[in-house]
C-alpha cells in the first residue's frame, strides 16, 4: 500500500466510516459524557490513547499467538482481557508520570473498558485482515473521528440546553435526533472519495 492509499484510508476512517455516526460503536459514553465540551475533550483524548494502544496489542497477539496456534475462537475472551489490562495500565502509568493529564482524563479511563468502540475496532482490524501499518493508520483514524464527533456534539448540546424544547424530548431524545442530523451531514463526505 503506497502513501496515497494510506492517506485515503485515514480520511475514510475519520469521516466516511465514522465509528460513532455510521457504525454505532461507543454510543453509551457518547450520550453520557457529551453534556460539557470540557469532558468531551477528555473522553476523546482518552479514547484515542486507549484505542491505538489496545489495537496494536490485540492485533499482535492475534497474528503472533492465536492464529499460529489455531485458537482464533478465543479472540473475544483474550481481547477483552487485554483491553481491560491496557486501561488499568494506562491509568497507573499516567498517574505516575503525568499527574496533570491524569487529572484531566482520570475519571474517563475506567469508563473506556465498556466502550464498545475499543473492542469493535480490535475486531474490525482482524476481520479486514489489515497489515501492521494499515492497522495503526485505521485505529488512529477511527479514534480521531470519534474524538472529533464527540467534541462537535458536545458543543451543540451546550447550545441546545438553552433552547425551548418540549419537556418530554429534553435530554436523551433530542440528543439522539441531533446525532441523526449529524449523521446525515457525515453521509455527505462519502461523495468526496
Amino acid at each position, binding site marked *: 500500500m503506497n502513501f496515497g492509499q494510506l492517506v485515503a484510508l485515514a480520511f475514510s476512517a475519520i469521516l466516511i466510516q465514522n465509528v460513532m455516526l455510521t457504525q454505532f460503536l461507543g454510543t453509551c459514553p457518547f450520550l453520557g459524557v457529551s453534556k460539557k465540551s470540557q469532558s468531551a475533550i477528555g473522553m476523546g483524548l482518552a479514547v484515542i490513547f486507549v484505542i491505538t494502544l489496545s489495537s496494536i496489542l490485540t492485533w499482535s497477539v492475534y497474528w503472533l499467538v492465536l492464529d499460529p496456534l489455531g485458537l482464533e475462537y478465543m479472540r*473475544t475472551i483474550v481481547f477483552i482481557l487485554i483491553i481491560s489490562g491496557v486501561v488499568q495500565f494506562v491509568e497507573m502509568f499516567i498517574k505516575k508520570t503525568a499527574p496533570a493529564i491524569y487529572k484531566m482524563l482520570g475519571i474517563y479511563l475506567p469508563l473506556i473498558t*465498556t466502550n464498545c468502540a475499543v473492542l469493535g475496532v480490535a475486531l474490525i482490524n482482524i*476481520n479486514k485482515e489489515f497489515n501492521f501499518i494499515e492497522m495503526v493508520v485505521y485505529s488512529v483514524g477511527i479514534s480521531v473521528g470519534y474524538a472529533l464527533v464527540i467534541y462537535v456534539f458536545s458543543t451543540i448540546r451546550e447550545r441546545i440546553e438553552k433552547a425551548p424544547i418540549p419537556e*418530554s424530548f429534553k435530554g436523551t431524545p433530542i440528543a*439522539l*435526533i441531533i446525532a*441523526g*442530523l449529524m*449523521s446525515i451531514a457525515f*453521509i455527505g463526505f462519502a461523495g468526496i472519495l
Partner: protein
Amino acid sequence: MNNKENFLKGIFSENPVFMLVLGMCPVLAITTTVTNALGMGLAFTFVLIMSNVIISLIRKFIPNDIRIPAYIVVIATVVTIVDMFMHAYAFSLYESLGIFIPLIVVNCVVLGRAEAFASKNGVFASFIDALGMGAGFTLSITLISTVREVLGSGTFLGIDIFPFDLVQPASIFVIAPGAFITLGILLGIINTIRFKRAKKAQAKE
C-alpha cells in the same frame, strides 16, 4: 418482590432500552430488519440468562476485589458459545449481525445485571431477572425495527406490505441517521405518555 414483579420490571419500569437507555450500540445498529432484531434479542437473552445464573451460582466464591474481571470472563465465555453456535446453525443471521455478537461482551446491560442483581440474589431470582430484562430488550428492539423496516423498506419480516408500490418507502430509515431519529422520537413519545400518567397520578392525590 415476588417473581411476577421481578419479571415485569424488566419489561416496564426498568426496561433497559427505553427507561435506562443502556446498551445502545446493538439497539441502533441491528434494528434495520425485524428478523435481525429477533435474532439479536434471542442471542442477548440467552447470554443474559446464562451469565446471570452462572454468576449467581459462583457469587460466594469470587473475591470482592476481582469480581468485575471474573464477571467479564464468564460473560465472554457465554458470548463465545453463542458466536460459534450461530456461525454453525444460523449463518445468514451471523453474517448480518456481524461484530455485534462478540460486542455483547461489552454491553452495559449484561455487566450491569451481573453487578446489580446476580451478585446479590439467588439462582432462581437471577434467572427470572435475566428473563425479564431479555424480554424487555427483545420487545424494545422489535418495536424499533418494526418502525424502521415498515417505513424504510416497506416490508415486515421480509414480506412486502405495500403491494403495487402504493407507498414509496423512505430509505433514510434503514441507513444510519434513521436509527438515531427513530429512537429519539420513540423515546420522546414514551416520555410524553409517562409524564401524562405521572400528572394524572398526582392529580388523584
